[in-house]
């Protein structure tokens, strides 16, 4: 997973925590029912679902990107065993001092 995906995930987590807690949650604590569904439930389930969809996008897209990248560079590393971005472990064998 690339550095960018890690950032997305961190942001997603923070947004998720904020979205389902006070005070954001209180904004939706009303007696209004869009499509006949009480707003509180509507909001919570919608937020939940959106979170999952974004999660799919971040995770699956990063997988595709990683696959193509490893294909391009001819890297020998196994798919799925990704490493932290910027990890300099592909540098050349140590040269003589």
């Amino acid at each position, binding site marked *: *997973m690339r550095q960018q995906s*890690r950032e997305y*995930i961190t942001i*997603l*987590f923070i947004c*998720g*925590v904020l979205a*389902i*807690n*006070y005070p954001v*949650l*209180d904004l939706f*604590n009303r*007696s209004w*029912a869009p*499509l*006949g*569904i*009480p707003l*509180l*439930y509507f909001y*919570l*389930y919608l937020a*939940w*679902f959106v*979170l*999952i969809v974004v*999660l*799919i996008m971040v*995770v*699956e897209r990063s*997988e595709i990107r990683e696959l193509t990248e490893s294909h391009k560079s001819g890297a*020998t*590393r*196994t*798919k*799925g*065993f990704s*490493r*932290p971005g910027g*990890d*300099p*472990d592909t*540098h*050349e*064998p*140590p040269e003589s*001092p």
Partner: protein
Amino acid sequence: MMGDGIIIASALAYMGLLFGIAYYGDQRADAGRSIIANPYIYTLSLAIYCTAWTFYGSVGLAAVSGVDFLPVYLGPTLMAVLFWFVLRRIVRITKVHRITSIADFIGSRYGKSGLLAGMVTLIVMLGILPYISIQLKAIAASFSLLRQYPEVSRLAISTQHPVWMDTTFFVALVLIVFTILFGTRHIDNTERHEGMVAAVAFESMFKLLAFMLVGVVVTFMLFDGPGDLFQHAAEHPDLAPLLRFEVVPGGYGGWLSLTFLSMMAFLFLPRQFQVLVVENVNEAHIRKAIWLFPLYLFAINLFVLPIALGGRLMFNNGDVDADTFVLALPMAEHMPMLALLVFLGGLSAAASMIMFETVTLSTMVCNDLVMPILLRANPRWLAGQTDLSGLLLGIRRVGIVILILLGYLYFRFVSESYALVTSGLVSFAAAAQFAPPILIGLFWKRANRRGALIGLSGGFLVWAYTLLLPAMARSGWIGTDFVDTGLLGLELLKPYALFGLKNLDPYMHSVFWSMLLNIGGLVFGSMLSQPDPLEQVQGSQFVDILKRERHDGDSLLWRGVVETAELYDLLSRFLGPQRATEAFDRYAHDHGGYPLQADSRLIHYTERLLAGAIGAASARVMISSIVMGEVLSIEEVMTILDESTQVLEYSRRLEQKSGELEAASAELREANNRLRELDRLKDEFISTVTHELRTPLTSIRAFSEILLANPDMEVEQRSKFLSIIVKESERLTRLINQVLDMAKIDSGRIEWHMDEIDLRTLIQDAINSTSQLFCDKAVALHEELGDAPVIIDGDHDRLTQVIINLLSNAVKFCPEQGGKVTIRLQPSSNRWRIEVIDNGPGIASDQHKLIFEKFHQVSNAHAGKPKGTGLGLPISQRIVEYHNGRIWVESETGKGAMFIVELPGTL
């Protein structure tokens, strides 16, 4: 009326099906063709999180507190977002270190502490009982309800009946049998249960379908879709508040704490840890589960509120327990097949939780509690057993029986009066106690055993005091006085308002205090104490787990982790601080500084420097002793039962080895110096011997050539030259003999013939054989040998050689005229003393020691060069010393010399 037979038969058939799946899964796993090795099965197996609590309890809770049921699923969703950061680390560590349970994990992290692992096991045992009890309760309640079909009514279960008529008890017994069948068929060294995972995946699908089916029926058949349902609810005065947040007990704070609790419980309940971590076959599966598992939770929760509201609307009189709405609604609508399906869904949700939880827990009890105690109590007996698997299985089976029965007892005496969710939360709060030691331990190296022990025990005590004991008290199990007035009547110690903290719901209150103590204890305990080396090793291995990446090529020899300072220390032990500093400075100069945490390049650099000093192989051994990498095969060590001592022993041995190597290299250097010195001496010796040999040879050759070139030489001169040749030849022979003697004595190859000898006759013989010398130089010999024989132990020939040598030396140094030699034999305290005295030029005192060295000759201006070989005295000295005697000279220049030999012997 639905017959008991049908219900029981279908229940058993369903369990049989699960068992078949499990059996098949195990077979496939043994054959190496796993059926669970895909991300979908992995995700479904995680749904073991959704127990009877979810299946029945969510609806029950939603029917009373509205949206309050949701945090329990929102928490895990948020945790799933963090899987890639948290779970992947834990999985990687678990695989690398061959960890088998959550107790094992915490114990390993903190220096392989058996104490900590045992403590975790105990906490889990106590904490999980309420959870098990609600599963039993759910099965029994659903069974009791279903057998009334089609009648639906609130039923009071169990307490009125004695144990042997209690349905729940029999449910417990059946579960015990199935659990033992499922979970303890054989011992697996990785503690993985592929078959059970496959069964769990199946029942997860089953319970989801059953629940959603009920939801669809209620929403679309009982009502005209969700709009209609909510419309009805909104119009009902009792139900309208359920659609707003105000019904949630504890408000937003309670909501937040519940979210937090379930986030932690989702990871750290023992069975969750088992399916998430231990049973994970491939790290890559986590990626899919990140979003697939939240989707499952989303789906199973979609119809919770519709069913709850539907139930409230249908059973308006409150006759039916809200916890059973899921089952009661199909029954009320006369849908027996659906009701049976729901019953089976609930049964499998509850049963799979109990089975997985107790199998996991019994493994922990066995490995982290019973075996260590057995090992300590009776190690000899245990060591004598060749196959312990029977014993292990026995312990685990007994553990399963005890755990399920305890769960039953808790149900019967404590949780009976509670709703499902309420009891379950007590367990969640217990599992959350493992969050600080694991999560902080994953990212903070300094976290150590003492801190973990303090934190965990503090958190546990607070949990027990603020949640477990009050629950027991409310059930009349223990007195309620301390709940109402505080322990010892102290207001500050009220379990629901500790230190006066009021206005929080009991869970948030407990979470706050227990986490405060747990985290605080861990952090401050760690900062105020020093970890031992093993804790440091484990700490850095756990924290740096992702840095140890795998490479297919062998371009990087060292994948391990080591502090640069450690490398420096190692290097300076072999190269000396100065050279080590120079080397590191050079590295810093070439590479623009060096990291605190040495990278593979620096390690390799150091290795090569070391290799220059002690050889490549030793250098690798040395480096591997401090680098925590693949080289130190941790797996091999882990397989041994008492692992911590093994690891300690291993590192201690490496440490020792390093010391030995260092000592050996110092010894080697010294030996080398000694050899070089010996070599120099040998060289000197050979050079001297050569010189001594060449000298007579020179005369012999010169005169021979002269004689050859002058055949008509005068007879007188010719015979003079010829006699010189003869004398020099004799000198050469003597020299060669003595050099050989010397070499023999020095190398210890000389043969000694020790016997009883008479010193007096020996001296007499020596005098006789040198009499010619005395005659030639006209030296007078004076003998003082006494009358009685002097018997000592010695080598006759060698001692004779010594006396002859001394006598001929004496003659040699005597003046041309009036030469006089005295030889004397006399006792001196415990020894015999032989003196040889001449009246020659004497020997300067600075020469007294030197004359006993090889080829050292005393030069004398007056006497000219004496015709010695320079080996007589050194040989004599060695012979005398062999007899434990002493030889030395007493003399002054111009006053003659006295050589003294002292030999041990009784008078």
